[in-house]
């Protein structure tokens, strides 16, 4: 199954199972969780079932294209189910079958992995899912977002598309994956992976990043004061990504890290609180549609 077919399949499967299929957000971010379709929609009482591909960036994970499956850029397939369905694991296993994985022949395991993202005040309990030892999915019951306790609780299912493809295509490296007939993942991404690794670790201007962080943080406060929640959300995401870049440049000492994380978390908290208030003022429109 080609890389692009995995996406088609998952979109079809989750659409058949009641999810709306959205498209990625046009902003650099560490994970699909940052997309407001998860970040904000998991808050409050309204039901929400969504699936989308999210191109993700983790600068410190760059390996100059040398590691077979650690890269600073990759694709996530993100599913958010709110409230978490009782048969959520069976639903998930069904999605693996839809990709042609024979469950009786492979060792599919749910291994404890309690997830948290301190920068956005998010806490969740769940697992990484192993297929014959390969971590192919992150499976999380969100407990908190922006420091707010969540009720109902959502399940977030995050597929690592490249890893699933390696597994399905029996390849040892991202770069050898077939994206489509005749085109490999490496054809599309290897050069940029090398260049971004160089940039993230060696070239990125620390003074510019530090300056941007301050400016984005300031801009956030300005827009949120004017009630522009979705604009504010983007500035939180930008701050978080700038922090990750600074981290890759080792420009932040371990002691300073804590205070940078606290600064982003503070923005996330303000944002989530504003969003909750906003939906309440709107009378929870999605609740009525149920």
């Amino acid at each position, binding site marked *: 199954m080609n890389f692009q077919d995995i996406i088609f399949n998952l979109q079809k499967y989750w659409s058949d199972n009641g999810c709306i299929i959205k498209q990625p957000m046009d902003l650099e971010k560490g994970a699909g969780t940052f997309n407001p379709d998860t970040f904000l929609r998991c808050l409050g009482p309204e039901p929400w079932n969504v699936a989308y591909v999210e191109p993700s960036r983790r600068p410190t994970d760059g390996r100059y294209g040398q590691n077979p499956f*650690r890269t600073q850029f990759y694709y996530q397939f993100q599913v958010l189910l709110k409230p978490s369905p009782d048969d959520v694991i069976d639903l998930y296993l069904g999605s693996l079958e839809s990709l042609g994985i024979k*469950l*009786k022949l492979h*060792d599919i*395991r749910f291994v404890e992995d*309690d997830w948290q993202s301190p920068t956005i005040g998010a806490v969740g309990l769940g697992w990484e899912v192993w297929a*014959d*030892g390969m971590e192919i999915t992150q499976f999380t019951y969100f407990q908190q977002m922006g420091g707010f306790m969540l009720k109902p609780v959502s399940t977030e299912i995050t597929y690592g598309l490249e890893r699933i493809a390696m597994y399905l295509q029996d390849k040892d490296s991202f770069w050898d994956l077939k994206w489509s007939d005749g085109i490999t993942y490496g054809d599309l991404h290897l050069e940029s992976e090398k260049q971004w690794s160089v940039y993230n670790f060696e070239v990125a201007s620390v003074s510019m990043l530090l300056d941007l962080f301050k400016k984005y943080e300031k801009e956030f406060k300005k827009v949120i004061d004017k009630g522009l929640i979705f604009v504010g959300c983007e500035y939180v995401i930008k701050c978080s990504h700038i922090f990750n870049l600074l981290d890759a440049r080792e420009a932040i000492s371990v*002691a300073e890290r*804590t205070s940078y994380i606290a600064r982003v978390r503070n923005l996330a908290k303000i944002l989530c609180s504003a969003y909750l208030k906003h939906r309440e003022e709107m009378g929870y429109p999605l609740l009525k549609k149920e």
Partner: protein
Amino acid sequence: MRKNLVFEIGTEELPPSCTGEGVSGLKEILENKLAENRLEFEDIQTYSSPRRLVAVVKGLSELQNSKERTVAGPTLKVAFDKDGNPTRAAEGFARSLNLKVSDLEEIEVEGKGVYLGKRIIEEEKKAVDVLPDILKDSILSLTFSKQMTWADHDIKFARPIRWILALYDNEVIKFSLENLNSANITFGHRTLSPGPINIKDADSYFKLLQDKGKVIADAGKRKELILNQINQLEEDIWKGNYKVVLDGNLLNDVVNMVEIPNVVIGNFPEEFLYIPKDLLVEAIQYHQKYFAVLDKSGNVSTKFLIIQNGIKDNGGIKKGNERVLKARLSDAAFFYEEDKKHDFNYWADKLKGVIFFSNLGSMHNKALRLKKVSAYIAGLPGGSRLHKKDDISTNLATASMLCKCDLVTNMVVEFPALQGVVGRQYAREKGEKSEVSDAIFEHYLPRFAADILPTTDVGLILSIADKIDTITGMFLVGKIPSGSEDPFALRRKASGIVLSILKGKYDFDLTGLISYNQNLYQKSFDFRGISDLKINTGIKDFIIARYRFLLEKKDKRLDILESILGSGCCSILDIDLRYKAIEEFIESKDIKKISYPMIRCKNIIDKKEFGEVDVELLGEEYEKRLFLSLSSKEKAIKDLMCKKDYTAVLAELYGFGEIVDLFFDKVLVMDKDKKVRSNRINLIKKAVDLYLLMADFSRLTIEGNSRI
């Protein structure tokens, strides 16, 4: 009649740590609730697999035990008027019990009088009627160190509960919890047996679960299966040429990660064998929970074991896991190579940015304190013997500055369990002396109860220093363990201090070391509103409590320790030496010959003021004898104390007892002459002080006395 109950809480995959917590909690709760509800049972056994917590109650009574209780109302005087007619009070009371006054009886309450009341025999309810609440409550009261909620439910559990099986013999104990109803249905292996399984009765649960469900719910059996498979491999297939590294924690985790274990052998490319052994083994174990395999000469081989969840492998599982380990190892190799580009100066500098604890500065600050604290320990009496040997103090200083460096290496950031191990490895590679590199590893010891202890003086002293420093810091910021709360494992650290002191035979006063350490903190940081003395005593008592705990574990007499502490001694080594001497003495001799005379002395001198003994006033023979004996004994005992020859001290005190007894028998302390009397009391006070050099023997519990 008695029947068996099986109670299964079906969940999504529980973390390995939660299954242990869950079953022990469940057992305790059930025992209490069944007892509270007067339901007798023979015994409760608990079982678990990743998707279930199971309790089996054997021989559970069908009926509650009867219970009689008495309800007392008004006194007879109040209940009846002069003519013997019931008053309104009596009638009101009867009504409250739904009875007539004529149904009531006289109840005598001892020491209080006679009341109008009723003996009520509680109805013996059937087990099946009480069990629903018991089982439901037991789920609700089960707590885990990490809990979660799911969907829109209120209940908290380690992972979502998906089914409940409750069978008393062949009868379902029916109750509901959130959206779940208890039933006689269980679920087996997720992929090998996906559908529901009907269980006929409690006794067929395990067999059906294994036969149809492909699940072994007994963790002990799963462990045995894994060990058997490993054994077979080592003996039959590898013919003794390879040996599996059986890490106990890893094995326990793995047992709780599969519902039915199956061992698969994998191989990884030789190119990774250059990674140092300790690092390589951890890289194999840490993320993927594989077992490393050593060859005959003890080197890591390219083989590794996968414990998977019961699937018959047709090659895919082996291949998949091999691919994963290869990538993990290439990551480990990447980190190792990255670390090679740096040296200890670089890492030591980075420690300035690593916070040791909030308000306690950085790891760099800690390293600087360790250098001073360890030098202080080495320079103390008992530690000073070390200076005669080579350059221990130089090694200590170096090791202090290097021991925390590996915290900022890529390897330890990736594999946290390797702290100390990576430091030792890199110190070797950078050409540090073996005393230094070994101490880097050893200063973390012991890491858990029954772990090994440091083997070298540098390691032992640095380990003591590191732990004292952490405990002192935590006490200064108020993070003092209480009850079962000990999030920073300070008790374990304190036990480590005690064991290392005893092993290295370091004789030093705890209070001195603690206040030295306290000063180091207080010079750099501000702790407002803290009483130095209270903290100091708190830490000293905290550490001595761990020594007491060691004695308790060995079922040793605690009164001996209390008597030694009564002397004010607060060197762990010294306390231990005295303890052993007294313990040995008690075995062969009559300790009362020491303790009774001391008690006689103490009884006289209670709450009085003292002065010097005036020799001129000593008139009677036996008080003169006591005085002379005191002077000579005091010198002898002090000399022996310096040599720590406590057996000889006890012998001296033993002999001294006779003289004290003779004094009391022959001399009247309470002389009419105030001066003489006061002088005799001063004399006795001196005798008490002599005993107290060694211990307060009056605190020994000896049959038939505490005061005579």
